[in-house]
């Protein structure tokens, strides 16, 4: 703790700001508290009173960066983000600066089901349909235009309590990643062949082994279900695809974005 001119002036500053009221907390304390709140908490915090709103928040960080998942619709350039804590979908249109609420997944809001499904882990936006992967049980496909959603239960989950981590769209397939699935389960012979072909191709393309993920559903299948009137019975797991286990998330994302 340095004592001298700097400390002296700091002390003077604090004395001037001194008040026993919460609304007149010195700015550096407001800053410290806000740093400990999540993004949404900070929005509410700054709505409490003027001095809290006017506090200089340059350089502030929020305690929760992870629950934000972002997807982009390349055609309309809309950003879609998922606030995973509240299972709320937000959309930002081109040229706008505010996020508009698109949907809340109400059917996950009951205490029982939110425990069952766990938090939402990721969101992908493909051809007008949003795919949201939850920690447990299922992926939800949501069509904002029709305000309609469908559940896609996870494959090979029986008795294993697998936590599915990441959802990606690649070549029209949704890839679902997880850390613990060791055995590959194939629905049929064809699926195994497809997997082996894909595995070979992807390994070659990526220049490394491609293991441990599921191809969850062809996105073409899903989007056609939404555009057409009929929702045909479930034909979920087209194949099981594997992906390299120890890949860091960011590296994986970059590989696919490229």
């Amino acid at each position, binding site marked *: *703790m340095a*004592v001298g001119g700097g400390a002296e002036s700091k002390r003077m500053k604090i004395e001037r700001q001194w008040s026993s009221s*919460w609304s007149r907390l010195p700015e550096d*304390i407001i800053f410290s508290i806000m740093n400990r709140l999540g993004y949404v*908490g900070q929005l509410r915090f700054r709505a409490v*009173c003027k001095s809290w*709103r006017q506090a200089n928040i340059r350089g502030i960080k929020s305690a929760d960066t992870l629950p934000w998942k972002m997807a982009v619709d390349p055609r309309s350039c809309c950003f879609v983000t998922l606030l995973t804590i509240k299972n709320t979908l937000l959309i930002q249109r081109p040229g706008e600066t505010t996020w508009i*609420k698109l949907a809340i997944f109400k059917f996950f809001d009951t205490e029982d089901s939110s425990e069952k499904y766990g938090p939402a882990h990721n969101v992908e936006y493909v051809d007008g349909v949003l795919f949201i992967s939850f920690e447990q049980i299922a992926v939800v496909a949501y069509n904002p235009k029709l305000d309609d959603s469908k559940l896609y239960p996870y494959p090979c989950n029986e008795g294993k309590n697998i936590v599915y981590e990441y959802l990606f769209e690649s070549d029209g397939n949704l890839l679902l990643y997880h850390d613990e699935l060791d055995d590959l389960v194939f629905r049929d012979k064809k699926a195994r062949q497809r997997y082996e072909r894909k595995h070979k191709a992807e390994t070659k393309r990526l220049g490394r082994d491609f293991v441990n993920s599921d191809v969850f559903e062809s996105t073409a299948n899903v989007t056609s279900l939404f555009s057409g009137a009929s929702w045909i019975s479930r034909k979920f797991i087209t194949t099981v695809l594997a992906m390299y286990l120890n890949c860091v998330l960011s590296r994986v994302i970059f590989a696919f974005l490229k």
Partner: protein
Amino acid sequence: MASSSSSSSCSSSSEKKITLKSSDGEALNVEKNVALEFEPAKGFLEDNSEEADDEAIVVPLPNVSAAVLSELIPYVKQRLELSAKPVQKKLIKAFDDQFTRHLSDDKLGELMLAANYLGVNYLLDVLCDVTADRIKNKSVEYVREFLGIQNDFTPEEEAELRAQCPWAFEGVDQD
């Protein structure tokens, strides 16, 4: 850490008492190493170092009440003892938890201002943690009532700032 170096350098003088004078005029005797944890007191003692007898020094702390000081002093004292030893962080955390668990919100605010004024940063960190913990997931109205904060927005201003992100104000914990 500053506290460990100051406590070791003051080990011989730790029995020496310093008098702190609170905002409400009460005089409190504290060990010198505890007083040195408070920045204004430290500065005051350095400015008056020619004074031979520490006992005679009275350090005015015009921004801290006796009630707050008498909570702070035992905390700082114990915290100094803890951090002088090579203890695990867990123990310090347990000690901090115990200290903050039963604090009322008024007390929390007062202590926070006092810790800020006195430059006791480790306490300030803990108190900010507790505050953030108490108000997160709470509605704006709840926070106002809870902490006794006047809503100084006009209805128009408030409606406007809520319209910017209405979803942020939904789904908060029940008050």
